[in-house]
Structure formats: structure tokens, C-alpha cells
């Protein structure tokens, strides 16, 4: 049984890749970009590891148009992610897109066999670390150094589409929790919205409530 450390999932995200996509945010990142909007998913944490086969069932059953792998660093768990994609594709031929803080060239030159297999199973890849000083409103990307690679011809039609921000997907759940998905167009967005709306992460809130 192959395990994948998963931080979060969402079955229908419209701002991280073409169409409505199932998104898997993996837990753990060895790069640690300054100003990362998801620092809570940087530490390696095996407490929420999930069986790849079960997760693949869920994805194949609920995804509309494709699968996006984000994190955390997907290529830090390339074997498991590649296995997940293979398992999904056994069930459905979904479009697969992934983020990585590595560059495509680095992965191709120095990547592990697992990272190569992972690259070989992707349709789209956003590569490169997030650089706060190059923050920009780009399609599916946060800083200008990051690139969108069309690794297959599945989404060739999107090559010349306008390169501007896909926006944010903000959700208020029934339990009154709030979350947002996507790549902010401006730097410091997370801090700004947390201060403005008085948001605290649910984990922190629950701990305080429990005290």
C-alpha cells in the first residue's frame, strides 16, 4: 500500500487549472519559499497520510475535468504522486496538472526516477519557486518567474489564452469556517485578509477554544 502525506483536498476548484478540478495539497515541502501563502503545509507530517488507492477512488469518482497536485511540494513525494496519478488514470483519463518549486530543467537533469515518472504523467506543470518580489497577477501562478508548461497536447488550445489571474475561490462552510483557494494576485494577501476579517486558522481557534 502506497501512502501519500496529504494536507488538504478539494473536489471542485475552478482557479487552479482549466475547468473544475479535484485538488490535492500534499503535506511537506523541502524548498520553503519566503512569503509562501501556505506555510502550514511546509513541514513534513505523516499524521494525515492517505492510501493512494483510496484517494484515487475518491478523485475518479468526484473530479469533473481534471486533477491538480499542489502543496507542499508534490515532487518531494514523487513516487506516491506518480502512483496516485497512475491509479486515477486506471479509472478515468483525467487531465493532470502539478505545481513544483523546482524548475523543469532541474527535474529533468537531476530528478529521481520517481520524479521522471511523475513528469511523464503530467499534462500541465507550473514550475519554479515563489518569489514575492516578482508577485504578479498571472494565470494559475503567483510570481513572474514561474512558468506554465504544456507537457502534452491535451490543453494545447490554452497556450495562447490570456495570461491573467484566474482569481480566488472563497468558500464559507456550513460550520462557519472560511477558506480561499487559488493564487493571490498581490503579495501579502493572506496576512491582509486575516487581519481585515479577523481570521484565525481553525486549528488555532480550536486549540484556544479548548483552553
Amino acid at each position, binding site marked *: 500500500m502506497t501512502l501519500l502525506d496529504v494536507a488538504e483536498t478539494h473536489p471542485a476548484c475552478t482557479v487552479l487549472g482549466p475547468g473544475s478540478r479535484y485538488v490535492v495539497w500534499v503535506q511537506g515541502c523541502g524548498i520553503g519559499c519566503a512569503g509562501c*501563502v*501556505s506555510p502550514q503545509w511546509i513541514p513534513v507530517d505523516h499524521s494525515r497520510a492517505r492510501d493512494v488507492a483510496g484517494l484515487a477512488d475518491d478523485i475518479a469518482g468526484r473530479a469533473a475535468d481534471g486533477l491538480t497536485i499542489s502543496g507542499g511540494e508534490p515532487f518531494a513525494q514523487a513516487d506516491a504522486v506518480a502512483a496516485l496519478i497512475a491509479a486515477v488514470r486506471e479509472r478515468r483519463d483525467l487531465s493532470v496538472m502539478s*505545481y513544483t518549486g523546482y524548475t523543469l530543467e532541474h527535474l529533468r537533469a537531476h530528478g529521481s526516477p520517481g520524479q521522471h515518472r511523475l513528469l511523464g504523467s503530467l499534462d500541465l506543470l507550473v514550475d519554479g519557486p515563489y518569489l514575492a518580489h516578482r508577485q504578479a497577477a498571472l494565470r494559475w501562478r503567483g510570481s513572474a518567474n514561474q512558468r506554465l508548461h504544456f507537457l502534452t497536447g491535451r490543453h494545447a488550445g490554452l497556450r495562447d489564452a490570456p495570461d491573467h489571474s484566474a482569481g480566488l475561490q472563497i468558500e464559507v462552510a456550513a460550520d462557519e469556517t472560511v*477558506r480561499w483557494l487559488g493564487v493571490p494576485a498581490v503579495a501579502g494577501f493572506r496576512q491582509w485578509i*486575516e487581519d481585515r476579517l*479577523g481570521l484565525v*486558522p481553525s486549528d488555532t481557534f480550536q486549540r484556544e477554544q479548548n483552553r
Partner: protein
Amino acid sequence: MSGSPKYHTVSSGEIRRRQAEEARRRREEQRREKERQRQAAALERAREAALARADEVARRVAAVRQEASRAGLAGDHVAENRLERAREEIRSAADRAAVGAAATVAEQVERSLVDLRQRIDAHQREQAQARVEAVAAQLAELPAGVRERYDRGGAEECDELIATARRYAGKAPAKSDVRVETAAQAVREHLDRVLARRAEDVARTTAAREAAEEVYHRFAELRADAEQARVPLPDEDGINARLRDVVTAVQQGDAARVLGALPELTRLVDRAEAALDGHIDRVIERRELLNSIISALPEAGFTVDRESFTQREDGAMALRAGSADGQQFAVLLRDGADNATEVLYTTDTMQEAAVTGDGKAGECGSLLSVIDRIGEQTRRQGFEPGTVRWDDDDDDQPPPAHSVPNARPATPRGTTR
């Protein structure tokens, strides 16, 4: 990299909490108001239902009171008063419990109607049964045998209708009136028919009996007349047999048989009467003629033997006379042709002459002289004797002129008509 963790809102949480509390307070207030309205509506529904129920019971009370009144029984005024008070309490009740408490009175009142209803039913049953028995008694005034004789169908119909009325009177007295009235009507019509037919029958029977008695008495008188005249009554046995049949029919009340037999019987009696009258007339005539002959015989030298007079069943009369020299003379008067009286004469001398075969004309001449003398005498008495004929072939003979047994008075003899 591309998403946030889940957040809880802090700064707006207090506002939202207060808003939520206010919303909750408003919801609770609305709920209380709705509950109050619901309770009020429920109270009103309960009140309407209880009043409707009380009204229904009140209608039943009123209906039962009317039935009781018709039956001559008193209604339950206490129950009616209780029910009216309960309706007031229901109208003014502040909650459903009070409505329910007052509403139970309606149930109690309704239960109390059961006893009154049973008394009314029992009374109605008694009345219905009494009416049926009155009709039955009316029917029984005439014996069943009489009714069945004169109107069998009506008798059976009345029995069936009364039995039906009895069943209804016992089980459903309220529905028995129609049956009783039907039975009463049928009984009236049946008795009318029976009485009318019986009266008609009695009249016919009486008429038949009286007609039969008239014939009977006529015949009895004829018989007495015949007996007195010592003549037979024609067809007496046949008339007697028919008369016995008629008497039997009269005793049996069979007027039809009586009236059917009377015309023929009357005709026979009429005929017998006519025949008897003819007999009697001839008997009288013969007696007078005989008296005339008797008075003429002494002139002819004969002494009448009055002890020898006989009268036969057929009305013929015979007499003997004797002369001083011992000669016997006999005369027979009988029916001749055309109801005329025929007179036969004979003497011993003539018999003896006939036996010896000689002196016929002389003997006949002697007899003829006697007859002539008698004829003269009878002519003076108003009788016209006929021509003397000589007939030796006649079987009928006057009584023997002497006492010789079985002596047959034969030729010569004289006859006048």
C-alpha cells in the same frame, strides 16, 4: 502555495454572535408568538369542536324529548340544563383544559339519554304491541272457520300481516305503525267481505230453505189429500226421494243444491198435484155414480151389499148386490178412455150361461134390462150412460158376484162408457 487553511472569523465573530443571539431571540420570540397563536387557534378549534359536539347532543336531546312527549313521557330537563350550562362554559373557557372539562358534560348528557331512550322504546313497543293485538282481536271477532269459508285469501293475508306487525312491534316499534295500519286496513276489508258474503249466503240459504219448505208442505198436503181420498199420489216415491235430497241439502246449508233441485221438484209436485186432482175428481164422480147405481139397484130387484164395497189403489170401485131369488150382481167402476168412468156389470146367471154356451142373448138381455134400469136411474141423477158394449176380452173384472174363490167373471158382461 495555492490555498489557505480553514479559518474561523474572530473580529466578526462577536458581532455575528450578538447578531445570532438577537436572531435567536427574535426566532424564539416568533416561536413563542407562533406557539401562542397556535395555542389560541387550538383553543378555538377545541372550542368549536366542543360546541359542535354539544350542539349535536343538544339536537339529540331535543329529538328524544319530542319522542318522549309523543310517547307521553317526560323529557330529561336536568340534562338539558346541564348541557346549556356546559355550552356557556365552553364559550367562556380560557384554555383547552377548561374546554375539555366542560365538553365532558356533553358526553355525560348523551349517556343519560340512553335510559330515556330505552324507556321510550319500551313504551313505544308496548303501544305498538297493543295496537297490533287490538287489530288481532278485531279479526278474532269472527271465527277463523267462518272467515276462511267466505274469504280464504283475505284470512291468510290478515294472518300474515298481523304476524309481520307483531315482529316489527317487538323489534322496531318505531317502524311498526305502517305495518299495523296495513294489517288493520286488510282486516277491515276482510271482515267486510266476510260479513257481506255471509249475509248473502244466509239470505240465499233462507230463501232456499223457505222455498224447499213450501214445496215440502205442498207435497205433504197432496199426500194427505190423496190419503183422504184413498187414491194413490202420482210419482210419490220419486218426489219423496228428491225431497229427501233437498232436505239434506237444506240441513247442510247448501243453498245452491237446494235451489238447483227445486225447479224440477216443483214441476213434479205440480204434475202430481194435477194428476191427484184428476184422480180425486174421478173418485168423487164414481162415488156419485155408484150412489146412483146403488139407488137404482133396488128397482131392479137387487139389494146392495154395502159391506162389499171396495176401492182399489188405482181408484176403481166395486160393489155387489143380490136379488131376492139369490141372483148376484156385481158392478165395477174404473178409468176408461179419455178419463171417462167405465162401468162393468156382471151376474152369476150370465156366467153360468157363458159356461154352458147357450142362451147368450137372453142372459144378455136380462143384464141389459138391469143396465137399462140403472141407466135410467143414473140419468135421473145427472149421469149420461154410454152405449152398452159387449167385451169378453177385458182382463179387468168386477169382484166376483158370489163367494166362489178364483171364479173368474167372464163373458157375457156389459159395459157402459
